[in-house]
């Protein structure tokens, strides 16, 4: 692992968009090594010993926050979790003031989740710490795309030429944007499916195919990635009812038969069972890799943290 250290050009991970295919491959290869660490009886390496990582989560998150925290601890970093609720943010402190105050305590890295696009870049432009984007609005969620790619590579053996269909609320999803960047850079074929109300303007220009039929999207797919329907958005005119959504775009075992016989089903979580995905599909041990995604998330985040921070101190 050490022979590959520090080959990322930036000291931040703000998105997949700025990465090269070589950088993506480096992160995925590095993650393979770290996955092995997570399978040992003593799941810890000293790569980030003495480094302070602040997890600045300004928006609710379970999976991503926990996953980053575990990754940091397995790399022996000192970690601190900062949530917006119960903090000075509730007293009206701005993001920049919050970040500059945290910076005064000299963290080496800040992992940020924020509801507004561009917030991680705003910090990266102004602070000396390495910034890792853990999701900014509907913009990017780079570590999710990396763990998805890791999982696809693990199961299918490659990314190039793989047919990936992503179905659901494309318009409001940061996961889909990061995945499109990553998959197109790695030469996978991406199809998006949703009602037109959930497809954002001119997304075809990102190099994807757009269809409005679940069956058409699934036909021949190697990977079927379902996105969460954001229930809090109900009533915002995107579709008439959850019932109708499930009937038109919900993934059921019958519909999954149109996919490639070895196709895998992914979901970034949290799932709405019976809305975008039937339990029979989500819990199908042969098809569903949803929990592997979560396991792989730790390894991928260890790789990112290591390449951005640890690689500099572990000579």
């Amino acid at each position, binding site marked *: 692992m050490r022979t590959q250290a520090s080959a990322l050009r930036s000291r931040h991970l703000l998105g997949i968009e700025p990465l090269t295919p070589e950088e993506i491959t480096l992160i995925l290869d590095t993650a393979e090594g770290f996955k092995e660490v997570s399978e040992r009886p003593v799941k810890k390496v000293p790569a980030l010993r003495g480094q302070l990582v602040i997890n600045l989560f300004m928006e609710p998150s379970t999976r991503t926050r926990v996953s980053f925290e575990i990754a940091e601890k397995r790399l022996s970093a000192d970690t601190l979790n900062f949530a917006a609720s119960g903090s000075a943010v509730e007293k009206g402190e701005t993001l920049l003031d919050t970040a500059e105050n945290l910076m005064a305590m000299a963290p080496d890295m800040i992992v940020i989740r*924020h509801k*507004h696009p561009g917030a991680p870049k*705003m910090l990266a432009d102004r602070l000396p710490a390495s910034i890792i984007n853990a999701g900014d*609005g509907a913009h990017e969620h780079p570590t999710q795309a990396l763990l998805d790619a890791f999982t696809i590579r693990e199961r299918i053996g490659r990314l190039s030429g793989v047919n990936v269909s992503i179905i659901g609320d494309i318009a409001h999803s940061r996961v889909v944007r990061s995945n499109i960047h990553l998959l197109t850079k790695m030469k996978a074929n991406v199809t998006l499916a949703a009602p037109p109300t959930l497809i954002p303007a001119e997304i075809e220009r990102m190099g994807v195919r757009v269809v409005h039929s679940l069956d058409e999207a699934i036909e021949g797919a190697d990977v079927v990635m379902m996105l969460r329907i954001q229930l809090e958005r109900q009533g915002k005119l995107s579709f008439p009812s959850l019932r109708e959504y499930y009937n038109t775009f919900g993934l059921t075992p019958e519909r999954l038969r149109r996919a490639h016989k070895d196709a895998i089903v992914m979901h970034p979580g949290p799932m709405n069972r019976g809305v975008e995905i039937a339990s029979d599909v989500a819990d199908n041990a042969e098809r569903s890799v949803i929990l592997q995604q979560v396991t792989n998330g730790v390894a991928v985040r260890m790789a990112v943290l290591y390449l951005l921070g640890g690689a500099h101190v572990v000579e």
Partner: protein
Amino acid sequence: MSSNLLITNARVVDPSQELDAKLDVLIEDGLVARVDKKLKASNVLTIDADGLVVTPGFIDLHTHLREPGQEHKETIATGTRSAVAGGYTAVCAMANTVPPNDERAVTEMIIAESARNGACRVYPIGAVSRGLEGKELAELADLRLAGCVAVSDDGKPVYNAQLMRRALEYCSMLGMPIVAHEEDANLNEGGVMHEGYFSTLLGMSGIPAASEETMVARDVILAALTKSHVHIAHLSTAGAIAAVRNARKAGVRVTCEVTPHHIALGDDAVQSYSTNLKMNPPLRSTEHREALLTAIADGTIDAIATDHAPHHFDEKNVEFDLAPFGVIGLETAFGVCYDRLVREKVIALPRLIDLLSCGPARTFSLPGGTLREGSLGDVTILDLDTRYAVTNTFASKASNSPFIGETLHGRAVMTIVGGAVKFDIRVGQAPSPVSRAKKKTKR
């Protein structure tokens, strides 16, 4: 206060008289006395403008001076200093102050403060509706009598079509236009930038072109119905231009303005997440910008207006989603337009001067916009050969400019209001009028 002044050896560009020649301009008692060759006058301040261009003073139809109520952003004193630093001799002050300019007392306060501390002429624009709430008409005749030159609820549209209809009818009696801020907030749904490829890429909520276009379509229809004058503020989309063109062909009295930033910048620039690129209407995509350029060249556009919208540093130093809409523009307008329109050969210089001076005067029936004898002694002197980098230092109290860091060509070097020098680039603001030695022509 007015003095006598002779500008010699200038290239005088006055589209109102189709003038473009090497001439002298004599201003007496605050008015243009003569424009001719080799003028002689005694006891006057003489300005040698050899190598420079002299034009009728610029008039901005769309300025937010923020006073009363938001003096932390801008005041009448600082906003008008920003204006003269950009070559403007008059600005039209938008009504969305705090309290809004929806009654005579506010109009009178603006006029009085402008006379006391303003560096240029200020023409107030009143509100269409009381409190800008879009519910009942403001006292439009009283506002007109107090000195308002137009009315607008700028910052928001007049949603109620019946209120818009009545306002248009009523204003036709008063001989003033309604300035329409065109957007449909339902279509915008929290949008912060143009809806298109880049809003998709950045994951930001979009403001579709249709938001502007549907409202422009409605308002030209209402202008036709009422035989009244509607002026479309900060027009930014191809569809809105088409609606204006079609209405004009049908004889509807519709005029329109575009801003320098919509001419110069596109939505791709927002990838930097700079909040100085956030304004409403938003920076549009290439096809809309190209339509604006065509409309400028073919005469569809009546005026270039800045929509100068100052905000405090703290207000803009936040996440893009949270920043207020608006950018300043008075001090960069000429340089940006000269660069993008004249140097890139979209139009010739006289057409640009028409858009900055004569056109605005015609559109709101204002004095000025011409150097005919007897007209206001409002003059802008331009140096077309100068190159300069825009820094974050402005005469405006605010610095929320999208052009910081850019190099521009051409700027106002002297601004004369009613025969008085209110801006001289060599000495800064409003110098005491002393006779000057030969001016060097190149910087």
